[in-house]
């Protein structure tokens, strides 16, 4: 098992390095002088030269690249152009809202997706099955930011169950925190669970056709036992894959969700950075998200090997 994990880690290293190279080189893709673009139309030549120097743009490409990768390796994201503060400092207070949203959404969407998928596979061909699949396909097609706005209109404006916007940090008490996060969590979980439902259903239906399931049923095991003991584990590999992929989709969802619900997280910081053309922050966000997703994929691979020992070899 350890050998497998180490092997996977080694394969991951070049991808992480390339992610760094791409993130850095994006700046070179700019039409014209990146410093002038970042500075905006009103920037004076001195200001542009200053930005150029701050970003190290006056050095040769490979030296810049080396500096950038070195800084990333040390976990130093550089300095924000807009606020002139270290980005690590800016990120810190924004981690908690985003992580809280992420953890809640991953848990809820997995439970909802696997649960509904199982229900659907159990009742395959019935009206319940069809209803779940319609629910899933709709979740697939609905734009998250639109659903978020509708949920505000229905539950916050009309019913008044939740605050329209406004985020309460964990420090305000768990209940207040969960209440202020309820709508964004539910909206993102629904969209995230849509694909999990479909994949769970088809994976479970495939397992249900196996001979050993017929045997299990023939020896008189209850359906509940058949599902939770004999179906869940063999069908969990595609489910784990899709849950891993959902995390990537969530990263996109958060940018929009945090903007709509005014959650002071990383997504909101990114959108602000884009309107201010604060490129070091954008680069930092790209690195954080991409490396997180690579890490999630690594964890998914390790879980595979844990579920199915054949994969280790």
């Amino acid at each position, binding site marked *: 098992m350890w050998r497998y994990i180490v092997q996977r880690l080694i394969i991951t290293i*070049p*991808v992480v390095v*390339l*992610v760094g*190279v*791409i993130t850095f080189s*994006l700046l070179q*893709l*700019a*039409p014209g002088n*990146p410093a002038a*673009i970042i500075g905006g139309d009103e920037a004076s030549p001195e200001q542009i030269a200053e930005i150029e120097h701050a970003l190290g743009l006056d050095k040769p490409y490979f030296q810049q690249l080396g500096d950038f990768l070195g800084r990333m390796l040390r976990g130093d994201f550089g300095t924000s152009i807009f606020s002139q503060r270290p980005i690590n400092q800016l990120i810190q207070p924004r981690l908690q809202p985003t992580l809280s949203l992420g953890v809640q959404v991953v848990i809820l969407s997995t439970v909802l997706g696997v649960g509904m998928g199982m229900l659907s596979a159990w009742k395959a061909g019935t009206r319940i099955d069809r209803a779940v699949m319609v629910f899933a*396909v*709709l979740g*697939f*097609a*609905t*734009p*998250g*930011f*639109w*659903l978020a*706005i*509708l949920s*505000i*209109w229905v539950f916050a*404006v009309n019913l008044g169950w939740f605050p*329209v916007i406004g985020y309460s940090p964990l420090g305000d008490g768990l209940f207040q925190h969960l209440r202020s996060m309820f709508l964004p969590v539910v909206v993102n979980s629904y969209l995230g669970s849509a*694909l999990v439902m*479909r*994949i769970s259903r*088809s*994976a479970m239906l495939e397992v249900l056709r196996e001979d050993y399931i017929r045997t299990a049923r023939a020896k008189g095991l209850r359906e509940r036992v058949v599902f939770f003991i004999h179906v869940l584990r063999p069908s969990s590999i595609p489910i784990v*894959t*899709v849950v891993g*992929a*959902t*995390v*990537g*989709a969530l*990263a*996109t*969802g958060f*940018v*929009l969700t945090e903007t*709509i619900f005014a959650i002071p997280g990383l997504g909101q910081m*990114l*959108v602000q*950075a*884009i*309107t201010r053309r604060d*490129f070091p922050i*954008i680069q930092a*966000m*790209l690195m954080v*998200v*991409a*490396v997180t*997703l*690579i890490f999630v994929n690594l964890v998914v691979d390790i879980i595979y090997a844990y579920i199915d020992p054949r994969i280790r070899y």
Partner: protein
Amino acid sequence: MAITFNPEDVAFARPLRERLRETWSSTIGALKRDPVLAGAVFVMLVGLFLVAFSPFLTRTDYTRPEPFLRLLAPSGDHWFGTDDTGRDIFDRVLVGTQISFLVGFSVTALSAIAGTAVGLVAGYNRILDNIIMRFVDALLAFPTILLALALIALWGPGLFNVIIALTITGTASKVRLVRSQVLSLRESTYVEASRVAGASSIRILVSHVMPNTLGIVIVLSTFTFASSILAEAGLSFLGVGVPTHIPSWGNIIANGQRHVQVAFWVSFFPGVFLTVTVLAVVLIGDALRDHLDPKLRGRLESTQRGDDE
């Protein structure tokens, strides 16, 4: 046993017109059997109609602000109400179809062509394969919208930049799929046969391998179409996509978000159009996939999803 060759038995020897007629009649048959699919195709046809004729269907000047008509509720005069500058939302939503379909078709076509070309090369040349695939892995580590946002921050907002940014990530996922298809096709008997017969690598690649990757590319393209429409709407919603004087479903929804407490209709209607369009594309994609190969199901979804809404 003697093998007799009868040209009429061979499917590819039949004239093109006959084969097209057969495809047409089997498509009509599928639509008759599946009313949901028929509905999806109908939605796409309506969309195409609106792309061509929506500017002639408008009843108001949908670009001119009318201060006295701000945020009117839906009525006989304004079926979907008006936005915060008094522009008719029905007209803007109709015309917004153009942007969504333009982005959808451009991104789909560009990424299908580029993705197939690069995927064929990667699947055929070992050395290039290693370089290209590492690069593709790294590109796919970025969620689509994030990469698009970064590129747009540099290039500035605008329709063209949105299309290019979305094409880059759309291409990466197709390269991966085409390459895996090429790797398995390379080992097939008919490729071996034509290699023995003396066909050159390029000839094998273009006339034997490429046609067999088409099906899978078309299916993945429907997902690209759906996700790029959603991504464009998301970017325009954030104000970095299509400029606000050009109506796009995303920027109409953004306009309504500011007034959701008093005028939900501004955001509501463009979102319905967006959802129904994406739904139609996804359903057509599902039908195509089942038609081409029911076993594809798992593979496609695991390579495609995760980078869009």
